[in-house]
């Protein structure tokens, strides 16, 4: 039984079909990732699943509750961390969590205990009385993670959980996510356009222009595009190409001053090759395909980081104007 079931879900904004008949299921306890460029329909999908948007057509259930007809039940079953901060900056960390506890009707005794525990878990205990406006981006995100878990949700939705954070902070956040998942037996649904972040998922769905174009484990997705790429440099590249063809039946090509070819499980093939190769080798490397390569192969373009940085720039500019 899947904890999230989505059947032909669509969302139209005017003429724009933001999400186009997507269907998928997420198993309990899974980390399920939506990967795609900005504007692919990731956030729209998440917003429909967490009852912020009404689908144009199709059906979705979360924890067995219909996202249109049983909104209140869905809301009690889920925790959320959005792209942008949704904390009250004028309240302290603790006050933010208390507010959440009241809003979700958690008994006082229980909530005080969980608040203490969760603040400990995200390493914010010593700052619990500080106003959120004094927090760094990473601290805010950690506080939001704690808040998202306060009412013991079945599913935690993370919309670009580490957007705008530096690599160190991103790793930190992910340590927390894995910790929490182990502790609370959570299902996690996340969207991201960071490839390395998607590696944390048990299964990934690649979405582009509102449509699902692939869905599998990260490893299988990478294997699906023809294995690893090997690049080698020999004294005589032409002889190396010939030898590869004759001895291993591998067709390779010369790219600049290197010989390149694709092979499944390149890391296992390499020792065999190096031990018995007649042509003398200068260098050799195996390149495991990334999810970026998968996306490139499937759509013909890369998930471009420029789009992101442009948006971030705009955000920063508007923030600066405000101060």
């Amino acid at each position, binding site marked *: 039984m899947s904890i999230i079931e989505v059947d032909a879900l669509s969302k139209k904004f005017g003429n724009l079909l933001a999400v186009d008949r997507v269907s998928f299921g997420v198993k309990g306890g899974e980390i399920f990732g939506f990967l795609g460029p900005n504007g692919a329909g990731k956030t729209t999908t998440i917003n429909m699943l967490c009852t912020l948007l009404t689908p144009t057509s199709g059906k979705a259930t979360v924890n067995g509750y219909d996202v249109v007809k049983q909104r209140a039940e869905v809301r009690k079953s889920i925790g959320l961390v959005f792209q942008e901060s949704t*904390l*009250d900056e004028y*309240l302290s960390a603790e006050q933010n969590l208390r507010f*959440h506890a009241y*809003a*979700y009707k958690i008994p006082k005794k229980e909530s005080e205990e969980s608040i203490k525990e969760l603040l400990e878990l995200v390493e914010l205990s010593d700052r619990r009385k500080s106003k959120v406006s004094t927090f760094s981006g990473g601290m805010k995100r950690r506080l939001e993670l704690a808040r998202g878990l306060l009412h013991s949700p079945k599913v935690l939705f993370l919309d670009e959980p580490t957007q705008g954070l530096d690599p160190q902070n991103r790793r930190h956040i992910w340590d927390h996510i894995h910790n929490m998942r182990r502790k609370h037996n959570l299902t996690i649904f996340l969207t991201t356009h960071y490839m390395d972040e998607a590696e944390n998922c048990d299964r990934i769905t690649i979405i582009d222009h509102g449509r699902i174009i692939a869905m599998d484990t990260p490893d299988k997705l990478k294997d699906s595009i023809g294995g690893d790429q090997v690049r080698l440099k020999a004294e005589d590249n032409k002889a190396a190409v010939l030898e590869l063809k004759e001895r291993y039946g591998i067709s390779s090509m010369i790219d600049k001053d290197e010989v390149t070819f694709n092979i499944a499980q390149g890391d296992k093939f390499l020792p065999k090759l190096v031990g018995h190769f007649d042509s003398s080798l200068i260098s050799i490397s195996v390149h495991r395909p990334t999810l970026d390569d998968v996306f490139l192969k499937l759509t013909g373009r890369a998930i471009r980081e420029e789009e992101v940085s442009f948006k971030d720039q705009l955000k920063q500019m508007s923030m600066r104007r405000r101060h």
Partner: protein
Amino acid sequence: MTDVFRGIRVVAYRELLRFVQERSRLISSFIMPLIFLVIFGAGFGQTIGSLVPGVNYLQFMYPGIIAMTVVMGAIMSGISIVWDREFGFLKELLVSPIGRSGILLGKSVGAATTAILQTCIMLILAPILGIPLSFILIIELLIAIFIISVSISGLGLLVASRMKSQQGFQLVTQIIIMPLIFLAGVFFPVNNVPAWMEFISKINPLTYGVDAIRQIFLGSEAASALSVSIFGHTMSIFEDILVVVVFGGILMVAAIWSFSKQE
């Protein structure tokens, strides 16, 4: 339904917390009316003298200023929604089980509670101005203020229900709401003004809120010469409040509808 009531409590509690924690808001909510009282009171007081026997200009204006503070606070409950939307916190509210009507009614009750606090602070000035206070008067006043504030907040919340920026809200406040407040009889009685102004004042629901609060302070005899009369009929406190509640109720329903339908 319990979700909605809990929502009202939670959201109102946060409004109150914010009001008390932000010293600047607390202080400015007291300073502004004080400035109005001192400057207008001193400026017009001598010229105008007594409006009716026993009621000088300051005594006339003081209840009006309290009413103005209440009305402004109620309308500003709207800006609190826009503020939350701009800073993201609104999403936390929207995905919680408290529901959309719980959010809006919570903002409204929060504004009303804040208004009561503000009024209590401003009551300190009454003895200085020579306005007698009694226990009954204060109770009547606070009940009326709560009802008026909750009702009028419907206007602010309707404006705010879809508004994306605070600047937008400020603009609407300046071109629609400020004139309505000035034409509500805060600074002058609306019975003795040019016909066009009298017309606007009398279809302006805020006028009745101001009138109710003034009648509570001045008593119905002194007030009868000054309060709003429609076709020769002088409005009683109860009728005043009824007008405000009906008006506010309609706007509140519209606000909740508009807020719930948004995406």
